């Protein structure tokens, strides 16, 4: 089984990175033992390779989800454990990583854009269009009012200091690159990330 | 219940109900307890709807039995006080067992054998009740240590075995001594039964003009 598994994981394309664990030989043994032992719950779950979202050890993880990616099945993550092939964590996970399932399904995960008006005591759900239109408008108003094109010495400085941004520390590198492009093209300089904190 | 004329009341209606509640509980406890005591008898749990129900019901029945037996104690303790007659009766146990009543000293309402059953149970039932509380996991496990629970469960089993043995003696005696069963079912005995087994009791009833189960206090003691 181990040989098959290693061979399997060398395939790098995204499509092949996910697969049913059945391929790995766990087939039907679960049900045979089910009479006395709790059935093995991952027998036909879909497996996706991912990286732990927390610290920068960046442990390899296997995400197991319900449904075989058929069109009519909505994939739901049911279990996450360490990727035994990952050279750093070798299948292990810390207490945060072992509990990743609970952050994916946290009851405090946000499901809809929300807006709080000045002085209001509560959020209200809004549409994406409302939120993004309004934010873009507020940004433009502020930028147009406070953008510094030239400093006192007359040097072109293209600086926008009255609106700032903090970038995520767990978003992908690709996200951060796109974020850089957007923020800096606006001239934003109050721009930082969690590296210092 | 109508009682035939000329018979004596051995047990009042209240006493009989009390007794049979106790007895019924005892049997249920016997079955459920044995089911949990010995694997060979686990099949008895099916009588109660399975192991979970057996485990759940047993302590409640035990509680009822404890209360019920307390009622019996209240009703019977005075007639079960030990006295010199009991020693004499015990000395004549051979005759008792051989059904040779002639050689047996007269006893009052209860003989030493009955008193043994009564006081044994009066001791064993509370012991089982208290140890039973200790091992009543659902409600009381938090109040004792596991070591205390181990002691309790051992005492509970030993007490239960003793109680079962006493109970067998009790039941057999009721079968063996004819007329006893009716005394606890219909409540009455014939004067001859009283003459044969509890002559002192009969004499006292006769002396006070009582038809049982206790001498009439307002008529004064019987003449000597």
């Amino acid at each position, binding site marked *: 089984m181990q040989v098959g598994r290693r061979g399997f994981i060398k395939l790098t394309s995204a499509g092949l990175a996910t697969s049913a664990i059945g391929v790995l030989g766990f087939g039907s043994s679960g049900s045979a033992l089910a009479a006395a032992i709790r059935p093995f719950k991952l027998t036909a779950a879909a497996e996706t390779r991912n990286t732990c979202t927390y610290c*920068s050890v960046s442990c390899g993880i296997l995400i197991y989800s319900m449904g075989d990616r058929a069109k009519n099945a909505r994939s739901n*993550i049911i279990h996450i454990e360490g990727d035994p092939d990952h050279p750093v964590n070798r299948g292990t996970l810390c207490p945060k990583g072992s509990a990743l399932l609970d952050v994916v399904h*946290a009851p405090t995960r946000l499901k*809809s854009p929300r807006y709080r008006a000045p002085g209001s005591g509560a959020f209200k759900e809004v549409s994406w269009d409302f939120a993004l239109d309004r934010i873009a408008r507020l940004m433009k108003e502020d930028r*147009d009012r406070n953008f510094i094109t030239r400093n006192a010495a007359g040097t072109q400085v293209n600086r926008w200091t009255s*609106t700032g941004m903090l970038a995520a520390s*767990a978003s992908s590198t690709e996200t951060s690159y*796109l974020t850089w492009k957007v923020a800096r093209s606006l001239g934003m300089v109050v721009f930082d990330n969690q590296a210092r*904190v | 219940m109508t009682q035939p004329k000329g018979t004596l009341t051995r047990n009042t209606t209240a006493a009989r109900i009390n007794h049979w509640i106790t007895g019924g509980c005892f049997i249920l406890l016997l079955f459920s307890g044995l089911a949990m005591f010995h694997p060979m008898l686990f099949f008895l749990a099916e009588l109660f709807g399975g192991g979970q129900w057996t485990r759940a019901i047993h302590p409640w029945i035990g509680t009822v039995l404890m209360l019920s037996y307390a009622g019996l104690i209240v009703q019977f303790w005075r007639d079960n006080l030990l006295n010199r007659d009991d020693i004499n009766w015990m000395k004549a146990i051979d005759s008792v067992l051989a059904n040779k009543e002639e050689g047996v000293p007269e006893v009052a309402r209860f003989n030493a054998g009955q008193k043994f059953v009564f006081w044994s149970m009066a001791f064993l039932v509370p012991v089982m009740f208290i140890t039973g509380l200790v091992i009543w996991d659902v409600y009381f496990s938090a109040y004792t240590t596991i070591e205390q629970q181990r002691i309790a469960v051992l005492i509970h089993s030993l007490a239960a075995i003793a109680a079962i043995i006493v109970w067998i003696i009790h039941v057999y005696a009721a079968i063996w001594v004819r007329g006893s069963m009716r005394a606890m079912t219909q409540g009455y005995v014939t004067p001859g039964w009283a003459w044969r087994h509890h002559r002192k009791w009969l004499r006292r009833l006769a002396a006070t003009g009582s038809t049982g189960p206790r001498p009439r206090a307002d008529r004064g003691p019987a003449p000597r």
Partner: protein
Amino acid sequence: MTNTWQDIKNANVIVVMGGNAAEAHPCGFKWVVEAKIENGAKLLVIDPRYTRTASVADVYAPIRPGTDIAFLNGLIRYLLEKDAIQHDYVRAYTNASLLVKEGFGFEDGLFSGYREEINGYDRSDWDYELDEQGFAKADDTWQHPRCVMRLLRNHVDRYTPETVSRICGTPQDKYLQICELFAGTAAPDKALTSLFALGWTQHSVGSQNIRAMAMVQLLLGNIGVAGGGMNALRGHSNIQGLTDVGLLSELMPGYLRLPTDAEPTFEDYMKTRQFKPLRPGQTSYWQNYRKFFVSFQKAIYGDAARADNDWSYDWLPKLDVPLYDIIRAFEMMANGQMNGYICQGFNPMQAFPDRGKTRRALGKLKFLVTMDPLDTETSRFWENFGPQNPSDPAAIQTEVFQLPTSCFAEENGSLVNSSRWLQWHWKAADPPGQARSDIWIMTGLCHRLREMYRKEGGAFPDPILNLTWNYTDPANPDPEELAKEMNGRALADLKDSNGAVTAHAGQLLEGFAQLRDDGTTASGCWIFSGCFTEKGNQMARRDATDPREQGLAPNWAWAWPANRRILYNRASADAAGKAWNPEKPIIQWNGSRWVGIDVPDYGPTTKPSDAVGPFIMNAEGVGRLFARDQMADGPFPEHYEPFESPSENVLHPKVRSNPAARVFADDRAAFGTAKEFPYVATTYRLTEHFHFWTKHALINAILQPEEFVEIGEVLARQKGIEQGGWVRVASKRGAIVCKAYVTKRIRPLEVNGKPTHVIGVPLHWGFTGQARKGYGANTLTPSVGDANSQTPEFKAFLVNVEKAHAPKE
């Protein structure tokens, strides 16, 4: 990290100081345990608290928070005094022999050039004495009074074991035991690794803490070798990536720096970037800066970036201050100088110093946008949550947008780990409800702004309108396309010196060596060049084979730069090119080229006899014991007390704290004194939680449910504090009320003759999520940063503690 996580197993001695690897990085810490078991390694832990890391240490020594430099300078003194340095390494690979300008000096706590009016130094004298050709002068005998080695000896001479113990509170016997174990790794075939994290950075002398250890490692010959290195254990899964891509106020992708007001033209800018070699024949790799910069501008502005407009240099914003860091940002915000703020997956209410100030500052914004998968405290700062967040919504006029984003399990992309590996990950499920990816949201904002500027005009729209956006789905760019953009491609056929085509127009580049400064290549992040080539997505590689099981796994994912796993690996071999440790070579000279298990951090065919230094990014080619002008607060580390300290500076009472640190007036006013706040506090994480995220995860909330502080038994007895009882911990800035953990793990330290108590404040609790409500450690912390990076001083400040009652809801 200079080395990989697995490489830690090759160490002979592992030092955890300025961090708590077992708790913060348990899965990386496995390699420490592996080193102990497989390599017989010794683990040394130096920490104010007896941590979980200490629980498996061979030697543990306590230290007062904020005194690491005293400890390390004392260690350098010890090593020099006992001559326990790796001589050949120090001579060939460090600047020990180079001569420093005559004007340089150090007196009474100040280096030469201090200017009080700017709270900083004129650093012009902190440099080498150059000869006529512009090369640094050297004295290989180390006799010259101004050679770096002599200056260093003089500098650390004051740090005797007695003085170290007096400042740090570390018992002398433990201190000397540790020094001895360090000294043992000066042998060429022995390695010591340093694992550190925010325990060093979050000080007003944070950068110098790290420099001090880096100097120790250079002296011991432990940089570049297997089982050695300076290993900064980065905090978040992609904080390395965000730093690499330049999401910091002064940075551009690939550690290019934003221009400043002092660089009005592109040529001005380039003048200070393309470092000329300071020693004959050195590489000084930054000489290629122009290629990286031009290729970057081509990547983001495409055809609009042309030679005739200096590659759109003018479109970049320029900085008027060194940094618009978070402390400055919230100072500006508190002063009403900011109107908008966007928090993308970041929670300042919990993470920034002086929570009260943070709350007040956010309340002065016109609008606040949060993008997060979770319901953060920041997005709810305006709401009244009782004593843990006593806000009055009616009085706060900030418009708040809470935008739900997808999480790691719901998107494709790469993350850069602490050892610089770019690892690709795949989506497993759709995000819940209407949650969307950050890419989609940022794109949505960008398009809206672009449309508005196109239609309405406005302030300087050129960079916005010309930003490249040629993605297949412009509304939701595919991460693979973005990765390719960072990797870079040829814009015209690239030819080598013989005229042969090395890359056709449009092809993805193989690496940054192909970058040109003539506009024929584009690369969004030069150091990532090679991550997504014509051979496919290198970040998705999953071959875990590991030559000699030395912990490199070179074909697993992809590491920047150029898939190099150990930085400065040329230094793993001696001047002649033979491995210092023949058991664990990394690269060696085979007579014609450098070969080994890693990609050489060096010219692959550069002969050892050419004497090119191994530190190719440095203009002098060698490691710096003397930092030249690169540090704001001195070329050598010096012990300065934290801004809130119970002790005077015994070395120079007049200069108590870092003289080059920037402190805003209102923050200075919020510093407490030892008279009012007699105990030293330090903040930290616990292994059960990850910052402020995992309190939203039920399992972690169960594992560590409620806020508490750690107090030593002696202090608890003095204060009548009971185990698990309520206490109130207060600093000048605020107070928290929580449970007390009375522990043997924190003992009073004898500092300058006085017993000093340390209180530990874990930082995980807030007012959203599943764990019990807490005040947050940052209620207490001071708003002052490191002189170089402005990282807040979370690790050493003053508090008072009293027995208390449970807070009223």
